[in-house]
């Protein structure tokens, strides 16, 4: 597999160009969509709550700019559907709410800290956008905390830059996590193609007890939760890592916790890699959540004669976009403009490559045909990637999953 990280891995993170209009959807996380609490013509400030968590398994959403709410209407989401979105006109003054930094987090109880994290609207920034406060709210002892800095998706270098540039903030967040979970051991898993990060993390982490930086082989999908837990601790995870006493958090999430506690501001921006072989200039941008893609892709020349793809996320698990007014969300780690590599689906020649390479030991071809163990598939895309006949295995497994979900729904009724 070609990792193509050299495009952007040595580029400093820079502030993304300002957008005039921002689209902030009410659903940027796994779980119930947030309840929108602003209406048309309201004035909002940077960091102001605009949609509040609807129940425990949900997350708060804040405005990333100051300005006027133009509309609340359905707008395109990176997953391809239309969801209720708050459209804000950026007045470019960036008036900020009066933030209250938490100086001494140790004076608060664990429950209060988790409530704070919920208030800040922090979700898993690796791409899955699982609400972090739900992940941290556990009533059983935790053996290991694993920080995921593997960033195994090709092209993406957002976490790479974060680990190098924001190491201090990362360790601030890590202290808070360790205080909440009190694990026996903390591991930071980084793929060995990011020696710069390993060095930075080791240099900073020297004062920390029980933290070890693991250099992992560069092999997609090293950063998948199940694979990471297996490779670091040797434990097999079936559903969630918490079942085996492990919590996995992305480096971005941990850094965001550190940052929110130091500044008092919620999650309103993130690092996004803008890359791909079809772009002349590539960047690592710090982007305000809600910025539409088209303001981040200024020069797309030479594409008039070609078929190409625009992807939100990495090339293996990201979603192809068809409308460039789609906004950057909490889980958008990259925007890629790449060649169209899709080929016509051929006949399965039963080579068994999908079976041999499945990182969680499934039988992808059986999962795609009959739905066998389809629900255990994490859709990493390795089987489709390796298939010599270009069978769209992951797409078929997704269809099987939908079928199974439908049957389960009907059974409940």
């Amino acid at each position, binding site marked *: 597999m070609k990792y193509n990280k050299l495009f952007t891995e040595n580029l400093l993170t820079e502030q993304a160009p300002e957008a005039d209009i921002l689209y902030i959807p009410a659903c940027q996380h796994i779980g119930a969509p947030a309840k929108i609490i602003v209406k048309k013509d309201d004035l909002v400030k940077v960091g102001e709550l605009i949609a509040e968590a609807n129940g425990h398994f949900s997350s708060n959403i804040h405005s990333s700019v100051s300005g006027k709410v133009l509309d609340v209407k359905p707008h395109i989401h990176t997953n*391809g559907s239309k969801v209720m979105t708050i459209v804000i006109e950026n007045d470019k003054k960036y008036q900020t709410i009066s933030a209250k930094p938490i100086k001494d987090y140790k004076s608060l109880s664990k429950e209060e800290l988790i409530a704070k994290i919920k208030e800040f609207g922090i979700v898993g920034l690796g791409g899955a956008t699982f609400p972090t406060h739900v992940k941290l709210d556990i009533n059983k002892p935790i053996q290991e905390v694993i920080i995921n800095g593997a960033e195994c998706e090709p092209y993406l270098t957002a976490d790479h830059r974060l680990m190098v540039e924001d190491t201090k903030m990362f360790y601030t967040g890590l202290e808070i996590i360790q205080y909440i979970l009190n694990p026996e051991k903390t591991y930071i898993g980084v793929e060995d193609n990011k020696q710069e990060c390993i060095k930075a993390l080791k240099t900073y982490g020297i004062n920390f007890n029980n933290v070890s930086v693991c250099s992992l082989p560069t092999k997609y999908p090293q950063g998948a939760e199940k694979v990471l837990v297996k490779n670091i601790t040797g434990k097999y995870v079936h559903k969630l890592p918490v079942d085996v006493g492990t919590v996995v958090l992305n480096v971005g999430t941990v850094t965001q916790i550190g940052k929110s506690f130091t500044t008092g501001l919620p999650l309103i921006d993130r690092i996004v890699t803008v890359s791909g072989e079809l772009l002349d200039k590539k960047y690592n941008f710090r982007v305000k959540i809600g910025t539409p893609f088209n303001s981040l892709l200024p020069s797309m020349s030479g594409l008039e004669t070609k078929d190409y793809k625009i992807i939100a996320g990495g090339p293996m698990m990201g979603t192809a976009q068809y409308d460039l007014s789609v906004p950057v969300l909490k889980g958008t780690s990259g925007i890629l403009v790449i060649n169209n590599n899709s080929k016509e689906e051929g*006949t399965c020649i039963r080579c068994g490559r999908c079976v041999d390479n499945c990182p969680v030991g499934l039988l992808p071809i059986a999962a795609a045909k009959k739905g066998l163990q389809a629900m255990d598939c994490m859709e990493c895309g390795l089987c489709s990637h390796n298939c010599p006949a270009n069978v769209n295995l992951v797409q078929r497994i997704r269809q099987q999953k939908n079928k199974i979900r439908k049957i389960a729904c009907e059974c409940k009724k």
Partner: protein
Amino acid sequence: MSIIVTSSPHIRDHNTTDKVMLHVILALLPASITAVFFFGIGALNIIVSSMAFAVIIEYAINKIKKEKTTIYDGSAALTGLILALCLPPSIPIWIVFIGNLIAIGIAKHTFGGLGHNIFNPAAVGRAFLFVAYPVAMTTWILPSAWFSSTAITSATVLAKEAPYSATIYQLFMGSVPGSLGETSAFALLLGAGWLFYKKILDWKIPVSFFGTIIVIALITQCNPFFHLFAGGAMLGGLFMLTDYVTSPVTKHGRILFGIGAGILTMSLRLFSTLPEGMNFSILLMNIMVPLLDNMGVIIHLKLYNKRYGVKKQ
């Protein structure tokens, strides 16, 4: 021109079906070269015309069935090559044509073409020729008959009461009477090494197959090296049993498949009137692939559930 939207993943491996087939053909190049080296230019004639016949027949069938031309995926050429390599050096060309007609026309395309055939096409072609033209199929010539027009007939080393004996070294290098490509174990192993390196060949079938042969040879007090290097065991075990389409997909199924083929080959060699059991053991094991895959899935589920601590619903 336009934005394309598909399901993920958006990047694909360059190892497509046609490249896989091309690599297997390349891997059989050493065996083809030794065939020409030992059996003369006539061997080249058989190999090239067999591949050409296979491609032409495939193309004609594509036209008759009014479907997309599939000759470019290389699978037809590969079938022709493998069939040629398991034919005797003195075979008339018209018999090679009939062999290919059976292999491509009957064994492959009546089931729906590449990916759907139950039996290894080359093995079916050879089995048919073996039954239909027993004399031509068992006329062997001594190697190193360079450009000589008169073939010196002989028997293979596996024949009962063989008049010809060979050292293990001769068997390994290939200077013994036999089918074109199967005599030189060295050349076949060289090609298989290339496929291993390219991650096209999986170790499970060859290892379990050769392991079973060695175990049975040791039990029956035969020389295991003799049974590995003589006859079609090498060609069959490395290139025919491992044919993707006609071998199991599951890991455990593949191991069972190799063991079964080993047992069948050795039983046919030792306890039947046939001198060589490879061809028929391949075909017999091909029938069992669905069964072995089912067993493979059952073993897989048991191991998976144990490993991940899944409770049965």
